[in-house]
């Protein structure tokens, strides 16, 4: 008895699937997935601050560990890009190293630690101190894209609130902070209004970094893999941190300077250096600190 034969395309596809180790596409994602993500990115750029749902793929890193940022980077990166990856402002934290290695393996693009030299920066929880330029793209890793989630966990409700621009709930939260503490008690992931329309979570960057979102010359992209949302702030877009007229938005200030480079206007990490609890402050942005020290030693010689 003749077994029915498969059509040629079906045969070829089956054969391809049967070969042992499949070749990995440039930057890991297959082209169809990249196309899907790019479409979501285009929508996001067209509606600044609006969360676009997308079909997030399972990546080789766990949800919650930057898969959204990685998918966005994978969708926009090209062989001529120069990639910088930071976590908590540093190129050297294990998570940044892990993600950078992932792209080195799957895309083989040039890597840099210098903000100035990068064309594409993926970041977790900080914006670099060095001002970004036109033409640069910064990709933020976002754990919770919905700024109202802690106040209203139901997506069906928050969708309506965003559609109708009903953001009273967010201001209620800020009011409560002032009533309870005398000032707004949110220090990171501080909600912003984008382009005068959408309420957005800037990802858990310290509020110190919020002013950098405003009218940034670079393209800012945000990816939330687990929650499956993408959003964007196009270059030179208005981004305002929420506040009350009589309780304006303020950033953190330190009394100390960086112990390594002397910076007084950068975000400082606190490190405990001995058993007596002696504290030292150093720049969170490792590249910024490095550049300042290099410049200082050039001047000195």
């Amino acid at each position, binding site marked *: 008895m003749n077994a029915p034969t498969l059509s040629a395309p079906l045969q070829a596809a089956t054969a391809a699937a049967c070969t042992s180790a499949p070749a990995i596409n440039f930057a890991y994602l297959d082209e169809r997935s990249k196309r899907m993500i790019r479409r979501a990115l285009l929508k996001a750029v067209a509606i600044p601050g609006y969360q676009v749902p997308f079909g997030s793929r399972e990546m080789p890193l766990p949800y*919650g560990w930057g898969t959204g940022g990685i998918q966005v980077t994978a969708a926009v990166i090209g062989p001529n890009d120069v990639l910088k990856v930071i976590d908590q402002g540093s190129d050297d934290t294990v998570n940044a*190293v892990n993600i950078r290695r992932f792209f080195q393996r799957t895309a083989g693009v040039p890597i840099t630690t210098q903000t100035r030299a990068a064309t594409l920066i993926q970041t977790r929880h900080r914006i670099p101190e060095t001002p970004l330029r036109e033409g640069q793209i910064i990709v933020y890793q976002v754990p919770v894209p919905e700024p109202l989630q802690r106040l209203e966990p139901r997506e069906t409700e928050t969708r309506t609130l965003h559609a109708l621009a009903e953001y009273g709930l967010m201001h209620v939260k800020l009011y409560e902070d002032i009533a309870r503490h005398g000032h707004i008690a949110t220090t990171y992931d501080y909600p912003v209004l984008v382009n005068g329309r959408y309420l957005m979570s800037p990802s858990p960057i310290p509020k110190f970094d919020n002013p950098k979102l405003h009218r940034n010359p670079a393209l800012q992209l945000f990816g939330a893999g687990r929650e499956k949302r993408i959003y964007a702030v196009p270059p030179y877009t208005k981004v305002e941190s929420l506040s009350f007229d009589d309780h304006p938005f303020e950033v953190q200030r330190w009394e100390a300077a960086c112990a390594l480079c002397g910076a007084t206007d950068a975000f400082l990490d606190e490190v405990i250096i001995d058993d007596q609890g002696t504290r030292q402050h150093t720049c969170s942005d490792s590249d910024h600190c490095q550049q300042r020290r290099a410049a200082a030693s050039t001047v000195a010689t």
Partner: protein
Amino acid sequence: MYVAVKGGEAAILQSYRLLAEQRRGDEAVPELSVAQIRQQMKLAVDRVMSEGSLYDPELAALAIKQACGDLVEAIFLLRAYRATLPRLGRTLALRTETMALSRRISATFKDLPGGQILGPTYDYTQRLLDFALLAAAPTQPPTEPGPARPPEPPAPRVVDLLNQEGLIEQCPPPAGDPEPTDLTREPLRFPADRATRLQNLARGDEGFLLAMAYSTQRGYSHTHPFVGEIRLGTVAVELEPEELGFGLSIGDIELTECEMVNQFVGSQSEPPQFTRGYGLAFGHSERKAMAMSLVDRSLRATELGEAVQAPAQMQEFVLSHSDSLEASGFVQHLKLPHYVDFQSELELVRRMRAQALISSASTDSAATPDPAPASPPWTQP
């Protein structure tokens, strides 16, 4: 471009080495083979396939070996692999009524056409540790095997029997038979229709679904469930290439299917009928299929005119938290450095404590509320 290889990279490489050691264990002990896992840890393999959404026992066994037996980690490995696979096509709907049965039971009838087939089950074992298994030598000659038992012939489904009298709801596909959403390709949106919910549940973590199902039995929205039927067996998977116009069997898979018969619903115009809950899993996974069927029924509350009061009835609650990858990823992401955000909180708490110290030092005991206090002292232009 210059790349500074500093502590981070070295730490990661070392952790890989330690992980490999942990996985191998004592070198004096023979290494576990993937084939052994596939054959002798079948139920683990079945779970990994179900939640990994990929029917490939060998790959599932490999994932289990690589994950050192951590099934959630193994499921992750399988899912990540699946995400790289090209789509060849879509099969025809599986026809479980044609299942070659190795197990088939019903709690709603004492006996029924096709009979009650106990099959391989832990249900009636006594849970006593069998120390004989400890001493098993690898090349033990097997005891004389009984004559090979062919699988039982297909038997009519209990729901179809109940259907003959119109006693149970029909659940026809929605008008126009729309294509179901593919949750592996598109994000979950709410409200989700039943097909989408079932997909989510099929991939959902067994432990979570078990707890949700259990809650419905303990009063958090009780649905008066009865096991209409559980069947375990193999079913042919058929593909229908366009140019052929008929189905082509590409193999058999083993499935566990559970039909739960639940609280009847009726109105003044319509006579009462039993309602249904459905569960399906790869391999032999009864606990999962049963839990899934209870939760499926519970999530149909709005459709069946029931008040939504318990967590197991709330779509957003159940479906948003059922995925072990999402849950595990986010819970464990707390291990990632958060010191920048913590730094911010630290500053705030310190300032608030300093302020509290100042205000308790003053003799203020105002009975009437003041308007908002003046700007805190720490704000500098």
